[in-house]
C-alpha cells in the first residue's frame, strides 16, 4: 500500500518537463544588466587630524560608530602574552573614570546601546551601536571608553581569571587545539606565534593595561567610522568635541615588530586524544597584500580549496566521502606575511590516506595549469559576488577605513574586479609554484594513533605535543 502511494506521488512529480515556454533553463539563462556602483563614504579630518569616514543611511533609526586602532598582540611584551587581548576587553569592560563598570553597564544596556572593544593580532576595534535617539549620550560614553577608561581592579581580576579558565579549556575541542598548534608552528620565533600561557596571564597587572592603552589608544593612531541615521554636521561637531580636542602630549612611538622568520622546515606534530575522528591541519607562511601575485593567489585559492566545488572539496568530500569539512585558504597578511592552511577531519582509520590525498591535491596544482573552466568559474564567482562587500552602511565605511589603515593603494577597490579578470592560467600556475610548498608543510594531527591506517611517522619525524 505504501509502495503504491509512493509510486503515485513519483509519477505525479514526473509530469511536465522542467523547462518550457515560461521557465528558462538555468544553464543558458540570460539576465538583465545590474546597476552597481561602489558606494563611497565621505572622509574628513577632525581638528586634531584624526581621519573619519561617514556614510549616512536613514533606513533605520540606528547609528554605528567605530574606532579602528593600530595595536595588537604583536606588541605584547615578552612574558606578558595576552596583554593586548586583556586591554582590549577591559577598555569597555572596566568602566570609565566618570562611571564605575557597573554604572556603565547599566546605562548602556538600559538604553539598548552597546559598546564592545577587542584587540586582535595587528589591530583593535571599539564599536558602538545605538538607537538614533540615544546617539548623543552613547557617543559620549564611547568617547570616555576610548579616552578615559577606568580599568576597574575587580573587573580586571575577573577578566584575568576568565583568561586563565580559557587556557585551561583550550584543548577541550580537538579542532581548536590543532588550529592553535599550527599557528604556533608556522610563526615560531615571532610574536604572531606566541600563545598566552597561565604564567604570562598571571604576570599581567592592571598597570600594564593602563600603559598599553595609553601607548596605543590615541587620536593619532586610529580611524573613526560612522554609519547610519545621523546628521552629518551635528556628528562632526560632536566628534570634534569628544575626540578632535584630544591632543596627546607625547609623539606617537610604536614599538618595532621583528620580521617574520621565513622557515622552510617541515614538521609533523601530534597530539593524542582518544576520539573517533582525526583533526588534520597543515600549512606554512603565505603572502602579504603587497605581493604582486595577490590576484592570482585569490583565484588559486578559490580553485584549490576555497569553494564548494574546489579540488579539495570535490575529491575528499564529494567523491570519496572522507570528510564533512575540508578546505584550504590563503589568509592574506596585511602587515605581516599571512598563512596558507588546509584543514579537514576524517575518521581515525582514514587518517593517513586523507593526509596523502590532501597533500597530493595541493602538490598537483603546482604541476600543470588549472583548466580554463576552473579559472572562468573562479573569476565569475569573485567578480559577480563583489557587491556583497557593500550591503550595509557599516560594512562600507569599515571597508574604506581598513584600506587606509593598512595602506592599500587608493584604486584597490575600483580596479579589483579588473585585476581578477586579467589573471591568466599561467599566472595561477606560477603563483602556485611560488607560494605552495608541500615539502615545507607543518602538519598537525590530533587523534587516536592506535587506530590510524598508517603510522604518522610515514610523513616525517613525529614530535608529540605534551598536553597538560
Amino acid at each position, binding site marked *: 500500500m505504501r509502495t503504491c502511494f509512493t509510486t503515485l506521488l*513519483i509519477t505525479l512529480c514526473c509530469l511536465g518537463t522542467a523547462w518550457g515556454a515560461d521557465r528558462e533553463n538555468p544553464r543558458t539563462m540570460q539576465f538583465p544588466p545590474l546597476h552597481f556602483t561602489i558606494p563611497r563614504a565621505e572622509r574628513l579630518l577632525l581638528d586634531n587630524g584624526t581621519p573619519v569616514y561617514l556614510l549616512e543611511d536613514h533606513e533605520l533609526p540606528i547609528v554605528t560608530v567605530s574606532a579602528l586602532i593600530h595595536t595588537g598582540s604583536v606588541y605584547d611584551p615578552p612574558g606578558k602574552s595576552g596583554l593586548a587581548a586583556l586591554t582590549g576587553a577591559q577598555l569597555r569592560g572596566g568602566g570609565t573614570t566618570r562611571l564605575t563598570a557597573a554604572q556603565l*553597564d547599566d546605562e548602556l544596556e538600559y538604553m539598548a546601546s552597546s559598546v564592545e572593544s577587542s584587540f586582535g593580532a595587528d589591530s583593535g576595534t571599539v564599536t558602538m551601536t545605538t538607537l538614533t535617539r540615544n546617539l548623543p549620550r552613547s557617543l559620549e560614553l564611547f568617547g570616555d571608553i576610548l579616552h578615559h577608561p577606568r580599568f576597574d581592579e575587580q573587573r580586571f581580576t575577573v577578566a584575568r581569571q576568565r583568561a586563565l579558565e580559557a587556557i585551561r579549556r583550550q584543548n577541550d575541542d580537538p579542532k581548536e587545539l590543532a588550529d592553535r598548534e599550527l599557528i604556533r608552528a608556522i610563526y615560531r620565533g615571532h610574536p604572531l606565534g606566541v600563545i598566552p600561557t597561565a604564567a604570562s596571564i598571571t604576570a599581567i597587572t592592571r598597570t600594564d593595561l593602563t600603559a598599553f592603552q595609553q601607548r596605543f589608544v590615541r587620536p593619532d593612531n586610529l580611524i573613526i567610522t560612522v554609519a547610519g541615521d545621523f546628521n552629518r554636521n551635528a556628528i562632526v561637531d560632536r566628534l570634534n568635541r569628544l575626540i578632535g580636542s584630544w591632543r596627546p602630549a607625547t609623539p606617537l612611538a610604536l614599538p618595532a615588530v621583528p620580521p617574520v622568520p621565513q622557515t622552510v622546515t617541515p614538521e609533523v606534530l601530534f597530539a593524542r586524544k582518544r*576520539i573517533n575522528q582525526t583533526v588534520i591541519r597543515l600549512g606554512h607562511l603565505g603572502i602579504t597584500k603587497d605581493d604582486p601575485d595577490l590576484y592570482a593567489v585569490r583565484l588559486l585559492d578559490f580553485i584549490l580549496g576555497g569553494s564548494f566545488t574546489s579540488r579539495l572539496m570535490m575529491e575528499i568530500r564529494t567523491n*570519496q566521502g572522507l570528510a564533512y569539512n575540508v578546505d584550504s585558504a590563503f589568509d592574506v597578511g596585511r602587515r605581516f606575511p599571512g598563512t596558507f592552511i588546509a584543514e579537514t577531519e576524517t575518521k581515525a582509520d582514514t587518517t593517513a590516506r586523507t593526509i596523502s590525498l590532501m597533500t597530493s591535491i595541493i602538490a598537483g596544482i603546482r604541476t600543470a595549469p588549472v583548466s580554463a573552466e576552473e579559472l572562468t*568559474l573562479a573569476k565569475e564567482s569573485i567578480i559577480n559576488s563583489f557587491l556583497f562587500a557593500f550591503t550595509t552602511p557599516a560594512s562600507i565605511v569599515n571597508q574604506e577605513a581598513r584600506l587606509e589603515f593598512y595602506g592599500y593603494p587608493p584604486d584597490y577597490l575600483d580596479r579589483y574586479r579588473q585585476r581578477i579578470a586579467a589573471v591568466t592560467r599561467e599566472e595561477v600556475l606560477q603563483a602556485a609554484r611560488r607560494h605552495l610548498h608541500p615539502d615545507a608543510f607543518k602538519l598537525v594531527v590530533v587523534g587516536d594513533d592506535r587506530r590510524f591506517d598508517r603510522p604518522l611517522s610515514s610523513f616525517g619525524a613525529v614530535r608529540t605535543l605534551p598536553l597538560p
Partner: protein
Amino acid sequence: MMRHLISGCLLLIWLTAPLPLQAAGLDGRVVEHTYQNGLKLLMVERHTSPTVSAWIRFKVGSVNERSDERGVAHMLEHMLFKGTKTLGTTDYAAEKPLLDKIEATAQLMMAEQAKEKKGDPARIAALQARLAALEKEAERYVVKDEFFDLYSRNGGVGYNAFTAKDGTTYLISLPSNKLELWAAIESDRMRDPVLREFYTERAVVMEERRRSYDAEPSAKLWETFLAASYQAHPYGQPTIGWMSDIQFLSRTKAERFLHRYYAPNNAVIAVVGDINPQQVIRLVGRYFGEIPPGTPVPTVTVQEEPQRGERRVEVRADAEPEVLIGFHKTALGDKDDEVFDVISALLSQGRTSRLYRSLVLKKQLASDVSTFTAPGSLYPSLFVLAASPRAPHTAGEVEQALLDELDRLKKEPVTPWELQKILNQLEFQEIRRMGTNGGLARNLTEYEAVAGSWRYLLTYRAKVARVTPADIQRVARAWFTRSNRTVGILTKTATGGTTP
C-alpha cells in the same frame, strides 16, 4: 550544507526567542501571497544594495521522523543539493537504471548488516565493493555540484541549508538581477530532485556526526542531556540521528520522506531585498505554481509525560566541566511562553543580567553562563541554563548557584527597571533585524512556520510588555521545580581521554 546549524544547539537564545510593541517598520512592508498549491510567499522590498536574499523553509524537520528513519530530514538536506532530472546530470535516462542498481545493492547490503552477528562478513564486503563500483560507474553521468556551480558563477553567496527539529531551510543571496536563476533552480529542486551519490554522501554525514558530536565533548553532553530530557517526544532525538540510524538510512527511505512532505503546501518562501514584489509574485508563480501539493505535515501527537523527578546524566570526556540544567516548558505561542523569554533575558542577557553579575562577576564561580529555549518552538521545549565552572569551583557549586538564582525569582518580584530594560532591548533588536536581507528572511520564514504567521513578530513586544513581576514569580514557581528538571554534567577524565 557546508556548515549546517543542525538543531542550532546552544546558540538560539534571542534568535528563537524573538523580538517585537509595534514592530518598527515591519508592518506595512511585508507583502504576502499564497498560491493555489498552498505555497506561501513573503516579501520585503529594500534597496540598500542591489542584492536579494531568498529563503525557503519546509515545515518538516527531525521531529517528524519515525523511529526507523531518524536522521532522514538532515540526510535529505544534504541530498537535495545533488541535482534533479535536468541539473546535476548529463543524461538522466541513462543514469536512472544505474541508480536503481545502486539502491538494490545497498538494500541487500543493509539487510545483511542488519543481521548483526549473524550477518556474513564476506557477503557484506562483496556488496560494499559492488556498491562502491556502481557509484563510481554512475559518476560518469554526474555533473558534480551543479547547483553550487551555477549560483557561484552568478555571484551567489551563502548558499546553504540547515535542518532543525521543526523545519528545514534552504538559503541563498544573489545579485538582484539573478533572482530568476534562484526560481529556476529551486523550483526544479522542489519538483524533480534526484538523490544521486546517496551512499557517498551518507559517509559524509557520518563524518559530520563525528565532527559535530562524537569528538566534541560539549556537544556530546548536549546530545546526551537532550535525550535524557525527553522519554516520549521526538525532540529528544538528535537531528543528525544516532550513528546506527545513519548506517541504515537508504535512498528509498529518504525518497519516501521527500515525496510525503517536500511540497509547496508545506513551504514558506521569503524574498527580501532589491525587488519589485509584484514581479516576484509572477516569477514565483511561473516557476513554482504548477508543482502539485503533498501531504500536509501532521502534528506530532505524542506528548511528553509529566516528569516525576530530577534526572541526572553525566558525560565523561577529556574536557573541563560543563553544567546544563533544563526544565520542561511551554511551546511557542502557549500562554506564558513569553514569560520564559523575559526570564531568560533577566538571567543572562548582557553584563547586567542576574547570572552574569552573580556567578561571573560577584561569586566568580563560572567563566560563562547562558540561558535559552531549545530544542524547538513548535512543541513544548526546554528552558536551559548552561554554565562553565571556573576552577577550582566545581560543577556542583555552579549548579547550586544557578538554582539559587531561580529561587530568587520565585521569592522576590523583579524590578520595573529590569523589565523596562528588556523592552528597550527588544525595541532595538527588532529594528536591527530589519538591517539585513538575510536576517529578515530568516525571521519571516521561521515565524510563519512555527507561529503560524510572521505577524507574531508584530505583536510580540506588546505581549512582553504585559508580563508582570507576579507572572514571573508564578511561572518560576510552577515550572522551575526539582521534579521537572534534568541536569547534565560534563566530567573530566584523565588527559587523553577514554576511548569511546
